[in-house]
């Protein structure tokens, strides 16, 4: 049962982290040329849109952005008792030779990102793929590391990190639930 | 038990529509015949006197039938025994055992065997196999040679060999002229013609009743008119020729009305229906359950209501089972390809008893429908509790509750839509020709023992 709950990030924390991550993306890539931002369903999609907007606000450039559903690439979906609802993957620009920045809310085992990379590869051949995660909670099962992190926190196995976003949940908050 | 034994059934509710008797009493069976029938307590003193005639005292079986109905042996004028030709489905031996277990002491077996019973040779084959069987077997001969509906079978010779009625059951006689000639010629040989009423051009390729369910399931329907047109034709031919006619397995409300009207006009006709036609509707087909596939097909609630009313008011004369055994080979198939028909001998009594419990018919009427009338229609002995008659008797426990399990039945086949139904009432003892042919093994509540 969920007994205790603590706030890891409030709305301002999230805003600051996203702004920093947006700037790091531009800095690391020496500009915005060939950059595309792709959010992973569900939380990553809203975050990707925010990152894209932050870059537009600072640099006046509207980067192509899309959304990716990785359900069909999951390695565990047949273990689930019910089939997850498949969302629409919407990437209406070519990925050839692009620098793809994948955005997700939380990185944990790395399996979701592995699936997302497979999905991206099926959609085209980008020059490289980078990963931005609002929260890195540790616990990796695959050799995958994010390039941009909002909050790095070690979380136990019995604990869950929930990223609440105003687009879905009314307000922005990252909470740890035990 | 030898056929010389003497059996005393006492304290039973005696039901004899022939005499109108419905009272508690006893029946004494001796040397294969009914030696005494009387209401009231059996008189011990008189027994001693009568017993003087018996050589061995311990040959007297005395059965306390308190709470049970004792009826003349039930007669089923419509069964398929499948011998010769389809012994994997049923044989005369297993079919008559099923009959006995269902309370029947006589059955009329339809001619659609392989070869078809259209000759005295086949009739004799059946008669020979029926010697020593658990029920009397009255073969029904084919109306036409090969059942092809073209030329008449040798009615006279078949009658001499043992045939008691004629029918092309399973297939209609489409040629009206042939049906007319059959009625005329059958009269010469005191044979009853039984009509399988179906207008084939309307029923062709149909596999269930035409209606909402057939549309929903995408199955080709058999419209009610296919039956009704032929019932009308055959009634008209019976009237025109003045010959008696029996209509088999009536399944529709309109057919019932046609028969009622013809009877009121004095046409010499009789008609039967089967328990499934007053118990089930087309909904029993469910999701392509081949156990609910038969010809004529199960109809609608309106038809079921009309059939029940007709059983009560005398329009329908008999309940026959149309016992049609099939193995999994013929039933575990695509619905279109599965064979028509269900077994019925061992479920007829409980299903007909439902009508009694619902107050639709009296117990005497039940005996009329299952014994007296079918015997009369066929013109065979039986159907009454009368001194001197062959001792064909059925003892029914009207309250016995049981789960119907075709796999435990005496029939060789299990094709029944009533599998796993909770039923109430069954034959617990059947006596044919003075011989016990069936004794319910399931913890019989009646006492049976030597005097």
């Amino acid at each position, binding site marked *: 049962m969920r007994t205790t709950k603590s706030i890891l990030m409030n709305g301002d924390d999230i805003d600051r982290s996203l702004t920093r991550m947006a700037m790091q993306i531009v800095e690391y890539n020496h500009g915005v040329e060939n950059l595309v931002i792709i959010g992973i369903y569900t939380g990553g999609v809203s975050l990707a849109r925010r990152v894209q907007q932050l870059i537009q606000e600072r640099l006046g450039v509207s980067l192509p952005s899309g959304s990716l*559903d990785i359900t069909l690439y999951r390695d565990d979906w047949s273990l689930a008792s*019910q*089939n997850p*609802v498949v969302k629409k993957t919407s990437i209406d620009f070519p990925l050839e030779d692009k620098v793809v920045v994948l955005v997700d809310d939380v990185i944990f085992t790395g399996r979701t990102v592995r699936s997302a990379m497979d999905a991206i590869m099926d959609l085209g051949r980008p020059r490289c793929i980078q990963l931005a995660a609002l929260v890195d909670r540790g616990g990796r099962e695959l050799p995958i590391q994010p390039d941009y992190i909002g909050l790095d926190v070690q979380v136990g196995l019995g604990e869950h990190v929930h990223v609440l976003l105003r687009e879905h949940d009314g307000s922005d908050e990252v909470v740890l639930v035990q | 038990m030898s056929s010389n034994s003497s059996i005393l059934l006492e304290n039973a509710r005696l039901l004899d529509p022939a005499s109108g008797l419905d009272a508690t009493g006893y029946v004494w069976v001796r040397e294969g015949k009914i030696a005494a029938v009387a209401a009231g307590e059996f008189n011990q003193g008189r027994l001693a006197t009568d017993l003087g005639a018996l050589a061995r005292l311990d040959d007297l079986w005395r059965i306390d039938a308190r709470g049970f109905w004792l009826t003349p042996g039930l007669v089923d004028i419509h069964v398929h025994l499948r011998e010769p030709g389809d012994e994997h489905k049923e044989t005369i031996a297993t079919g008559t055992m099923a009959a006995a277990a269902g309370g029947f002491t006589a059955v009329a077996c339809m001619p659609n065997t392989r070869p078809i019973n259209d000759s005295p040779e086949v009739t004799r084959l059946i008669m020979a196999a029926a010697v020593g069987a658990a029920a009397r077997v009255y073969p029904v001969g084919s109306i036409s040679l090969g059942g092809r509906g073209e030329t008449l079978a040798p009615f006279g010779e078949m009658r001499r060999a043992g045939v008691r009625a004629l029918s092309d059951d399973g297939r209609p006689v489409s040629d009206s002229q042939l049906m007319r000639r059959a009625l005329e010629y059958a009269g010469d040989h005191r044979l009853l013609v039984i009509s399988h009423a179906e207008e084939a051009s309307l029923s062709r390729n149909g596999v269930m009743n035409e209606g909402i*369910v057939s*549309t*929903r*399931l995408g199955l080709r329907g058999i419209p009610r008119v296919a039956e009704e047109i032929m019932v009308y034709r055959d009634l008209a031919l019976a009237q025109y020729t003045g010959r008696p006619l029996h209509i088999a397995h009536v399944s529709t409300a309109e057919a019932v009305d046609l028969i009622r009207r013809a009877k009121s006009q004095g046409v010499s006709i009789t008609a039967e229906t089967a328990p499934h036609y007053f118990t089930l509707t087309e909904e029993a087909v469910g999701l392509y359950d081949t156990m609910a596939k038969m010809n004529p097909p199960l109809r609608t609630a309106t038809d079921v209501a009309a059939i029940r009313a007709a059983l009560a008011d005398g329009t329908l004369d008999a309940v026959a089972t149309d016992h049609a055994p099939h193995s999994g080979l013929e039933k*575990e198939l*695509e619905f279109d390809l599965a064979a028509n028909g269900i077994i019925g001998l061992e479920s007829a009594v409980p299903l007909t008893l439902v009508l009694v419990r619902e107050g639709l018919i009296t117990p005497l009427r039940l005996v009329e429908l299952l014994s007296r009338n079918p015997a009369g229609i066929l013109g065979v002995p039986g159907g009454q509790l009368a001194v001197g008659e062959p001792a064909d008797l059925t003892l029914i426990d009207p309250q016995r509750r049981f789960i119907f399990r075709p796999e435990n039945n005496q029939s060789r086949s299990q094709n029944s839509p009533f599998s796993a139904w909770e039923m109430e009432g069954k034959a617990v003892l059947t006596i044919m020709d003075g011989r016990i042919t069936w004794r319910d093994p399931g913890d019989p509540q009646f006492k049976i023992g030597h005097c």
Partner: protein
Amino acid sequence: MSDAHTFSRRHILGLADLSVDDIELILQTAESFKEISQRSIKKVPTLRGKTVINLFFEPSTRTRLSFEIAAKRLSADTFSISSVDSSAVKGETLVDTARNLAAMNPDCIIIRHSRSGVPGLLARHVKASVINAGDGAHEHPSQALLDLMTVREHKGRIQGLKVAIIGDITHSRVAHSNIIGFSKMGAEVRVAGPATLMPPGVAAMGAMVCSSVRAAVADADVVMALRVQQERQFDPLLPSLREYAIFYGITPELMALARPDAIIMHPGPVNRGVELTPALADGSRSVILDQVTNGVAVRMALLYLVAG
């Protein structure tokens, strides 16, 4: 429908078995899957290692191909058995065939058969999921689902639409599944056709039987013409195809009675000039090729939802 709706059907035997939520989930899933077929690499690894058997006892090119493409785009291993090389010709019963297939442990069996009810019979004898690809005159669920998807794509909704289905209602499994599906989803379904091809009890399935094609088409949002099966030899059902075309075929004059934005559908293959005039079949209001495209997406969705 909420995301929480669980798809609990193991088999897809007909629209009659599916709830509104089931249908909604299938359509939503299919809409998501549509994009995959537009990629240059038209394949996702979802059903990797799963075995899908296409068991076609009745000739079919389109449906079989559509299912096969759907399964392959989901990375399933597919095997096709058609009537010519099936055991049916050797006198093996369907139940025998089913038991043999079951022993090879497939995950999904897609079956088409000329006899109504066969997919259900198969489902009772195998562990695999069974998808009905058309059985006799019973149902053709994937066709109705792709029709629903196509209509929703063009009209934005199903609820409240007037859908006219014209032709051989008796023998058409497409009509049966569509009547059930569209009425379940809140459309008003009207049917019209020759009286010889109008079965009893259509109203009980949810359709309004119209006395004429004109009455059915009047004010309709969707006009669906059914294929006339030329192999109807048992019954004197129709005098001629010519007569059918004149009195029951969909023409531009008839379409003028429908709503101006009405779309024309047909399950294919079209007998041009019989059910539809060629100009209509290939014209701007025809969504016949969209139906084909959506067929792959719907079949992918069905495979995804049952083969897990």
